[in-house]
């Protein structure tokens, strides 16, 4: 009897031991995601999963299709990344297990996407067919489509998609010159409110971090359009109208990007189109309060999370330089020359570091944002966008 009991006990111990070994060998239980991020390798259809504490590459995931102009949003628990590819691919990647969880090819040509504030809906803005599609964030099942129809049976490319509080999304019709507000509610089909005649060729949009203002930049004319979502009857209002004062535009070799734009204290810093300037406006009134002459056509003007500095990169052929603007004095605080084709900049959550993709050097560089010292270099194949999981908790990111 005694012997039998001993064997039973031994077996139980072995079983428990095996289970414990399995648990510790499996990374699921040991990895949190708050310091993770994704680097897009645009030319090879792959992404790198990185961690920003030790500044290391954890894994590479391949087979994501055409990732030129790819962007990424994150689930509320920061475990999943949703990657929007140029070829209409929408891929949900599990950052902990470093595997593709789901993937759909939902359109022929896409430009970007957003995730709702409750984390349940993913919206993708498409060029072809022009419009926005809505997906369940868990299953990637399609749950709605909004065709961007305008004029006489025309369909517009859609741009500048942004999430707004209350399961809402905003986007602009590039060809149609309209802004649409989509309210997904909790039941029934989404309600679409259309704002027409906002201006010529809106090329991108942003929503402020409080979810109050949606701004669309215009390519076809000088100025931006602003929609105040806190107004009882939101109506598009032109701001910075005619900032070029009819001067001939300089050629734009890469379109500016508004998402990731800069709110610095009580002011917004925005890229001008067709001139080598950063425009500075008062946050409440949207009156112009200054301009900063910069190195080239600005692409991204991104505030360090505290707003004290804004980092600016530039269009081809002046894209080897990054400038840092002091948001109080509007002086150029620093000029860096990281290398050929700096495409994107991403700050850590509270802004102590910035990561820069240096595409033509096949490298991502990490800088200290106070001393401007370079802290690390990571090899990456033709890197473009860099996205950290802390975006999960910011409106408009």
């Amino acid at each position, binding site marked *: 009897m005694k012997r039998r009991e001993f064997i039973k006990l031994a077996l139980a111990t072995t079983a428990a031991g095996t289970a414990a070994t399995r648990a510790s060998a499996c990374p699921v239980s040991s990895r949190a995601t708050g310091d993770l991020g994704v680097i897009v390798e*645009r*030319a090879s259809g792959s992404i790198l999963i990185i961690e920003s504490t030790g500044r290391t590459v954890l894994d590479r995931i391949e087979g994501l299709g055409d990732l*030129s*102009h790819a962007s990424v949003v994150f689930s509320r628990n920061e475990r999943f990344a949703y990657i929007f590819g140029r070829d209409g691919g929408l891929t949900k990647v599990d950052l902990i297990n470093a595997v593709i969880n789901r993937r759909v090819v939902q359109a022929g*040509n896409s*430009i970007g996407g957003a995730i709702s504030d409750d984390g349940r809906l993913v919206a993708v803005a498409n060029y072809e067919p022009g419009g926005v599609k809505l997906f369940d964030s868990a299953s990637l099942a399609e749950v709605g489509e909004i065709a961007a129809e305008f004029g006489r049976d025309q369909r517009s490319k859609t741009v500048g998609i942004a999430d707004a509080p209350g399961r809402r999304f905003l986007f602009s019709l590039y060809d149609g010159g309209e802004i649409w507000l989509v309210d997904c509610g909790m039941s029934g089909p989404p309600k679409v409110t259309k704002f027409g005649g906002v201006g010529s*060729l809106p090329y991108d949009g942003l929503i402020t971090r409080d979810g109050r203002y949606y701004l669309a930049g215009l390519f076809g004319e000088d100025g931006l359009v602003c929609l105040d979502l806190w107004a009882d009857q939101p109506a598009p209002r032109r701001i910075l109208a005619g900032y070029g004062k009819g001067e001939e535009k300089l050629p734009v070799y890469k*379109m500016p990007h508004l998402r990731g734009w800069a709110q610095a204290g009580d002011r917004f810093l925005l890229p001008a189109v067709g001139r080598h300037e950063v425009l500075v406006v008062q946050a409440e009134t949207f009156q112009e309060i200054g301009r900063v002459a910069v190195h080239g056509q600005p692409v991204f003007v991104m505030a360090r999370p505290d707003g004290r500095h804004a980092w600016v990169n530039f269009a081809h052929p002046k894209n080897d330089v990054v400038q840092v603007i002091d948001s109080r004095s509007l002086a150029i605080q620093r000029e860096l020359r990281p290398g050929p084709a700096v495409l994107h900049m991403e700050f850590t959550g509270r802004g102590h570091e910035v990561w820069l993709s240096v595409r033509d050097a096949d490298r991502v560089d990490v800088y200290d944002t106070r001393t401007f010292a370079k802290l690390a270099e990571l090899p990456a194949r033709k890197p473009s966008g860099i996205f950290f999981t802390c975006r999960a908790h910011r409106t408009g990111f």
Partner: protein
Amino acid sequence: MVVLAGLLAFGTSAWALEEQREKELTNLVRQDCGSCHGMTLKGGLGRSLARERISQFDDDTLVAIILGGVPGTPMPPWRGLITDEEVRWIVGRLKTGFPE
């Protein structure tokens, strides 16, 4: 026949760029033109540069568009950044299958 073709190609000079410059131009078209036209050149904010579509236009028209841009659209003039000869090389390659 092969020799003749070679001579003709050499004579047009469009095919006589340095190998290094061809690599740079390939990167420029894929990466920088690609920011609007797509890295695979299937189109994006800008129109498709796919072989089937591009082949509908004669070389001089395409060269003029690339060098001079298209007013009223985001297509900028590339004159000053690339030479006439280099643009002819790009046009030729777009029509015959653009290198990776």
